[in-house]
């Protein structure tokens, strides 16, 4: 049987997050196909429940990608998002799930190499930790 492929959800903000992914693709960067991008208007829109539900639905790792904190399109969106991701990570640690599975990143829309690096990092995390065990999952 072929090696199990990780499942990764990436919540990308419509502005710099998505733009950096698009720029990476346009400059010919190849990255792992196991990342599923979900577009949200701003990283601040991502709620804890979205991340937790994604983990429950079978994602091995979840990341949120927003604008750079000092240059966020919606001013404070990525700062709010980071706070929320930290909260979710803390919650996961209390539940006994590795908190490395959830991560927040910032990228600039002009930065073509940031996105492949993020994907590589998350794939590595997902492969290392494997799927969330049944006992762990509620």
């Amino acid at each position, binding site marked *: 049987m072929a090696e199990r492929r990780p499942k990764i959800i990436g919540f990308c903000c419509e502005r710099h997050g998505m733009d950096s992914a698009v720029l990476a693709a346009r400059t010919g960067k190849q990255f792992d196909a196991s990342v599923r991008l979900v577009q949200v208007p701003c990283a601040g829109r991502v709620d804890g*429940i979205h991340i937790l539900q994604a983990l429950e639905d079978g994602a091995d790792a979840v990341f949120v990608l927003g604008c750079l904190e000092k240059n966020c399109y919606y001013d404070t969106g990525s700062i709010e998002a980071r706070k929320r991701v930290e909260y979710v990570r803390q919650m996961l640690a209390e539940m006994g799930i590795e908190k490395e599975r959830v991560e927040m990143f910032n990228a600039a829309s002009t930065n073509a190499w940031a996105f492949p690096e993020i994907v590589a990092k998350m794939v590595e995390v997902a492969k290392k930790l494997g799927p969330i065990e049944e006992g762990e999952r509620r």
Partner: protein
Amino acid sequence: MKAKIQVVLCKCCTEIPSVLRLESLSKLASESNNVMSVMTVDAICDGKQLAPVMNDVKQKELDRAVVLACHKKDVSPTLLRAYRRAGVNEFMVELVNIREEVVLPHANEPERAQAKAEAKLRAALARSLMLQPLERQTEEMKTRNVVIIGAGVAGQAAAKEAAKAGAHTVVLEKSGKTLKVPGVVMQHSTLVGAEGYGGNLKLKIRAGEKVESLDAAALVIATGGGWTQLKGSLAKAVKDAVPLYKLNEQVQVDAPIKGPVVVVDSPDPSGKTMAVQDFAWDETLETVVELKKKHPETEIWVVFQEMRAFGLSELVYKEAADAGIKFIRYDKGGVPKADPKNPGVLSVRDFSQGEQLNIRFGTLAFASIPANPDNRLIAEVLRIPMAADGGIRRGSIQRWPVSTPRPGVFVCGSALFPKSREAAEAEGEAAGAMASAFVKRGTIEFGGVVAEVEQEKCSACLTCVRTCPYEAPFIGAAGKAEIRIQACQGCGMCVGICPSKAIELRNYTDDQIMIETRTLLGGDF
């Protein structure tokens, strides 16, 4: 009523078929529920090819669409307008970026790319069924006034530019100086209050003794700003440093200046944000040259990190060097320092020679322009954020470099951070042009993807009021949160943070986001 979906697959000339099998995508789409029509086009960005797609929409009376093409920003305006004309609400069109998210980055793995594209299509169809038609609303502007606060270099440039474009300008000037700028000049006046949103602002202005109210469509902040004191470690050692503009005044009035004179390029040379200052090169060079002319015996040192004398300033730089003014360049490794025990000596490492220099000085000047304490007041009145060093913070630099996060409120010149006269003037012109363009629209458009409060769930905890950068949520008469949709930008920050889950962002609801993630996770690739 049953939803009727049109699925459009764009070939993007030949790029997408080179990796994906469009026939099987098309088969998957046509077998899905509610899909009435599947079309394949060569390039959706080509206006000519839109016609058959739109005819199909009209014939079958479809009410929503899923378009698999490229990046949203590249296709959306034309495509959405065409759908609108064909009778499909533009918020019911789901654009899937299949080119940059699947085809280009996974070109080496066509099998996985195919599976991913299918999952994306399924997710888009699932999400499409949950979309709601939204309408954008418009409101007439009651006035066409552009109010400019401050009549300095930037303010005057803004007034001239705005008037050139036909806007009616009102310039508020704190002092009583007479000005030759177009429009009304209100002397001895300051802004003390503001209500409303960009387009229909109600301002309260204290003019002399009385407070007047004034309607404005757009506002330009050109109050200026800067530093009057040294900062950081240098400030602890040197107590009697003078800002550059004070030194300039002293030179102009022939006041006695204790030599030798040292001019530093920044109020805080070791600080991070103020490491390099380009705003004051003209002033620095002109001042030192004039000082040297008047007092040739005075020894003058200019300590700088980066010389930015461009354009004609280059000539002044040369003149200064010829006159015997000493220029010392430093870098991060050897920033100017002074010992509190021996405050008359500045020690700095010369970057070009690599030598540690101890310069004995009588006067230490630092590049600066007068700070404006009004900035804080104006920021509070207009509820816009401040930068760390006392200026107004602009919105995202990509969005518009002279705008604040509030639409219709613009900022220019040294109110952002200290800068040279030319740069301030250029920014003033930009802000004036932006303000007049904003006013010329005559209407403000709002709505669409905005937040909405479910009043029963709201516990009036004020979290959304505190979080929103645009001041859109407020506590209404019923004691529950409401959204000022004219101010809402549709980011959804309040939605994510609401502890009672009382706010929803239209067309980005929790259900819609979660069904998308669930469907995407369903695919195995």
